[in-house]
């Protein structure tokens, strides 16, 4: 299986050097289109998205995360650092299980 990066230009550049393919996204529409395409690709096992890219299409990302077993989506901080508004997994877990982490 493959990985795919969806992020800003610098991040995609970096990952390309490391040998991981990716797409640069600059607008939510573009992000949505690319995201849907990548999700459809059966060979993609993990999608790596920067916080900023993931936030622009938050709903779609959440839907895939919870309704589909593949691909796994992981958000990473971009060059600008972790996003303050990232909806953390910790919150979701507190809601669902009542465990504070």
């Amino acid at each position, binding site marked *: 299986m493959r990985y795919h990066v969806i992020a800003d230009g610098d991040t995609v550049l*970096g990952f390309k*050097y490391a*040998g*991981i393919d990716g797409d640069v996204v600059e607008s939510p529409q573009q992000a949505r289109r690319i995201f849907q395409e990548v999700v459809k690709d059966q060979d993609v*096992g*993990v999608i790596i998205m920067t916080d900023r890219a993931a936030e622009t299409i938050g709903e779609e990302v959440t839907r895939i995360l919870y309704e589909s077993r593949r691909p796994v989506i992981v958000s*990473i*901080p971009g060059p600008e650092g972790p996003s303050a508004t990232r909806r953390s*997994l910790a919150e979701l877990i507190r809601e669902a299980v009542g465990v504070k982490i």
Partner: protein
Amino acid sequence: MKRVVPTRMELLRMRKRLATATHGHKLLKDKLDGLMNEFREIVEDYKKARREVDEGLPEVLKLFVLAGITSSRQAVETAITQSSSSLSLDVTQARFMGVVVPKFAVHFEAGETTYSLLDAPSELDDATATLKEYFPRILQLAQLEETMRRMVDEIERTRRRVNALEHVMIPELRVTIKYISNKLDEQERSTTIRLMKIKDQRVKEERAAREAAMAKH
């Protein structure tokens, strides 16, 4: 409460069901405890991995921003088109406590520096090497997140079943058993009384018959 026929058979059947439900409840509760313990450990691992990536990765990515500025656009683009995917991903599945979780493994394939060293600035090499070091950590993060997500589902499901048994099924069975045994007791009492009455009557009749016979003599 459902309509039940108050018979001894039914009572035995209900008692058996109660025993099964109680046993099942205990088993599920143990499973839930086990899941929660396991979950707490995974949460700890996750927090650590998340912190590492959140703190370290932006610094690495900044190096690329820098490289993008300092080197010519041409060189960067050539480098990108020349570098092919040298990492592949193996996904296997593991199970614990009835939960299927993914396990990822990274493969670095040969021919790592696919871009021309002459065109690319040397900072890029360092940045690339550091990013590659980070990559397994990002993957571990993905794996932990997915594991947590699947475990949360299983925990919820198990908890619902434990609660259903504890608060609905077991109490209902208890009420039914009580109802049947009360009914049976009542039937027994009324049977005894009927028998006593019949006996009384028969004794009376016999006495009357005897007295009548004595009067004849």
